[in-house]
């Protein structure tokens, strides 16, 4: 009997731990992922040597699973999102994702000895849409705020916007996308993104 209750307790603890993990708070998630990535950048000899393939791998496996690219693309498209066919939407998400990976790997190359500050989350615990605030501090520079717009979907938090020093990625691309759509339609935008990702289109 005693053994059984011990097993039950163990099970309950395990179940609780799992549940807690599934409901990792958004700020805790940002902190964990940032520290993981910074840890890799600082210790991985390939990343240190500027190995692009390895840097992309780190981004693909560590960062990207925490982003909601469909939501990001839809937000950057604004009203035009609904005028795109499902096939066009798929291509847009794919191309936008590729573009952001390229941009991010460039940003990681610039990483020096910054320190990250994680701000306490100011939102009520039931909210499913929050902004997680972090700050990067470097000598001789004003601190740069990096905020993440995050939404809870099916129990996990995913980022749909990154706001660096007040510059929202999604807002920035809204101008870019709408001017491309204005001149060449949704297909024109897809083409512009594809060309950009292929290395052309300076």
């Amino acid at each position, binding site marked *: 009997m005693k053994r059984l209750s011990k097993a039950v307790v163990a099970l309950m603890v395990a179940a609780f731990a799992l549940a807690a993990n599934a409901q990792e708070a958004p700020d805790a998630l940002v902190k964990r992922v940032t520290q993981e990535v910074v840890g890799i950048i600082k210790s991985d000899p390939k990343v240190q040597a500027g190995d692009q393939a390895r840097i992309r791998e780190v981004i693909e496996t560590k960062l990207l699973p925490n982003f909601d690219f469909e939501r990001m693309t839809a937000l950057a498209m604004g009203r035009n999102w609904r005028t795109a066919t499902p096939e066009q939407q798929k291509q847009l998400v794919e191309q936008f994702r590729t*573009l952001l990976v*390229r*941009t991010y790997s*460039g*940003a990681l190359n*610039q990483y*020096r000895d910054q320190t990250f500050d994680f701000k306490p989350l100011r939102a009520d615990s039931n909210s499913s849409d929050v902004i997680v605030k972090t700050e990067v*501090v*470097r*000598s*001789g*520079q*004003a*601190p740069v*705020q990096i905020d993440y717009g995050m939404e809870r979907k099916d129990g996990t938090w995913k980022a749909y916007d990154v706001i660096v*020093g*007040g*510059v*929202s990625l999604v*807002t*920035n691309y*809204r*101008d*870019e996308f709408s*001017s*491309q759509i204005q001149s060449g339609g949704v297909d024109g935008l897809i083409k*512009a*993104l594809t060309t*950009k990702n292929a290395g052309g*289109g*300076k």
Partner: protein
Amino acid sequence: MTAVFRRACAVGAFALTLGGCATTAGPMSSADPYEPWNRSMFEVHQAIDGTFIRPVAKAYNEYMPAPVRDTIHNFFSNIDDLFSAITGLASGRMDQAGHDLGRVIINTLAGFGGLIDVATSGGIPKGNWDYGLMFGAWGIPQGPYLFVPLWGPTTVRDGTGAVARAFTGPISFVSDVPTRNIMYGVAVGDARAQAEPTYDMIDKAAIDKYTFIRRSYLQRRNYMLYDGKIPPDKEDE
């Protein structure tokens, strides 16, 4: 005339003459009524910067040892902090002005005249306030967006701020002309070298660099002016 001064004058001249320009082609952004003109200025900037300046900035960042670059940057950053303190005070931002004044005192005394940024390590944040933001805090609207070759994105308000800064020194107070010119040169070089990672990022991220830079600049300045708490009616500026 020195580089910064010339640049500042250019901004001022633009601010004055553009007021009389006619707006023709439909502007894409209400903040940028002179878009066709600005776009051509952006092309001029890219041609000059890409050919002559960018290679130097890249080489400087690559071959000049980081401690040397940091020391040079810290020196000018310390001067900026003084102006941040003054303009912050004039904007009624007591906390930020106090921090920046503290930074100047600490970095000047303990950081060998500003060569080492001791204050950041000590946890005193850099305020980054300036004349343009001070005008904004006084309620002066940003005015039309401008792209000035060799200077970059600005607005009539921020450009006027840059002119005010050029006139109020402290480099302009250095009486020995060669020394003053060298200081201007190094200050401009440091600023451009510091901006190189941003140029790189824009190359990678932007589909249309002009739009990307404009949106980033306006978002950034608005965010700074309101300390990140942008009132809803100012969000689209």
